């Protein structure tokens, strides 16, 4: 039998069946792996969602377009390990919506920048990068240190992420679940009704912008940068522990 396009195009039944077959093949390839995504995320201790202040810092990171020049993904290569540290894990960005892996590095990777420099350094460097790194091409962000942080909608921001599956707690039951999973200190920082109180407390205690008098966007952004890549303690694992997940 001569089976060609002519046949398909003139026969609605065949056209329908073949169209559905083609679409489901594509759909299966895209959707089925999502059901197994938990298996590909490394089982590792310490990863937690962002605190209220860090979350606002992350929003500012996105607003200022930091991701256009900075990636947050250390690949498993020798040269990257030597410069940036242990390669990034899927687990480390499991609460990121959207993730900040990036694919463009005009500046260095920031996946493990947390704790590498002082708060003072970050504040000075964000305000005037060339005052510390003469060859830098990074723009100045002087308004961060002078703009008061708007945290009036922090609860809404956390609610939105909760909808996508980030375990911020709204009810007492959810809070108790977080205490079991993350311990009491972290669970408190994830409780949405206390978000504003927690944000102010963290900013005042941390004094990230080295100006204790007010809470600025600099406080939030530096708080975010200072926790990047610090959650997993790699000394707790054999150095090939993460091989088996790939």
């Amino acid at each position, binding site marked *: 039998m001569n089976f060609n396009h002519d046949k398909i195009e003139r026969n609605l039944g065949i056209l329908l069946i073949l169209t559905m077959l083609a679409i489901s093949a594509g759909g299966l390839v895209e959707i089925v792996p999502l059901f197994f995504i938990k298996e590909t995320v490394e089982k590792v201790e310490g990863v937690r969602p962002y605190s209220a202040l860090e979350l606002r810092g992350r929003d500012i990171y996105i607003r200022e377009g930091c991701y256009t020049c900075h990636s947050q993904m250390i690949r*498993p290569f*020798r040269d990257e390990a030597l410069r940036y540290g242990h390669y990034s894990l899927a687990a480390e960005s499991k609460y990121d919506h959207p993730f900040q892996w990036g694919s463009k590095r005009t500046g260095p990777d920031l996946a493990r920048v947390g704790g590498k420099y002082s708060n*003072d350094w970050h504040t000075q460097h964000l305000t005037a990068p060339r005052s*510390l790194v003469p060859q830098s091409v990074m723009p100045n962000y002087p308004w961060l240190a002078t703009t008061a942080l708007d945290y009036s909608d922090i609860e809404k921001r956390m609610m939105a992420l909760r909808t996508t599956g980030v375990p911020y707690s709204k009810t007492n039951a959810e809070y108790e679940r977080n205490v079991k999973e993350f311990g009491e200190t972290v669970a408190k920082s994830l409780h949405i009704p206390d978000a504003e109180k927690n944000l102010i407390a963290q900013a005042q205690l941390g004094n990230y912008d*080295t100006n204790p008098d007010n809470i600025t966007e600099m406080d939030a952004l530096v708080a975010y940068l200072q926790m990047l890549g610090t959650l997993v303690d790699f000394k707790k694992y054999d*150095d090939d522990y993460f091989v088996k997940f790939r």
Partner: protein
Amino acid sequence: MSEEKVKGPTTTGHVWDDDLQELTNPLPRWWIWGFYITFVFTVVYWLFYPAWPIGSGFTKGVPGLNSITYTATTVDGKEVEKTTHWNMRSKYMVEMNELHAAQKQWFDKVAATPYEDVAKDADLMQFVNSAGKTLFSDNCAPCHQAGGQGKIGFSPNLTDDHWQYGGTYEEISHTIVAGRQGYMPPFKEVLKDEQIGQLANYVLSMSGEPHDAAAATAGAALFQSETAACYYCHGADAKGRTQMGSANLTDKIWLWADIPAEKTAEAKVDAVKKIISGGLARGVMPYWNERLKPEQIKLLTVYVHDGLGGGK
């Protein structure tokens, strides 16, 4: 409207609306064969690399064809040889094994040599200088600047003879391992503006900067008094205490107030006054014992002490 048949290789064969036909121009042969070859390539790929997801696992390729053997270090420091299927992370283990093998003899030698003997071995010092420069550029240069010259108002110069926290090998090593936290209390609540001015003049006088002699004399008394108690941290001789990182005020080296850049005597006084009244909650050096390995810290210590010079 032309009655001519459409010219060309072939048409699909059917005609719409009397004369509407569709050409079928076949793709070139080389292209089609290239396409089929990619099919064959995928099958070869499945044999060598992780490919098909199956349930909660995936096909790992044919053992033997794609096995990778590497040496892993366990949590308690044991070295174990392991064989696994090819993947990015096992390949990375091999890359890191090769790196350690290449550098091991040098790092072992650095670890086995007492600090003060490293610089006497020219070959070893060459390794320290080259590996140290890389480590320093990646980790230290953002604050201490590319040559270790520091930055007034920010980080100390590592190439001179003055050490806030001590310049022996042990002290430098401790600074890198545990970090430092500078602190000077603010005096604006405790002292009158006039008194702060007197202290500023005294501080400037010790470095031979222009000052008001009468105010400096009053400042000197204040410095040693229980009211200001400057001597408590900076020492009765004002030469600082390395145990707490308080500055030597007599050595003409300025870290926080940029005295050399201030043109007038008033501006110099004001710059020092600002520090005394506001204090300092700065001068934070991060700790590196989690980011760097012990052998890297020892190498950096020697690099800072002997490579950059200025160590004690």
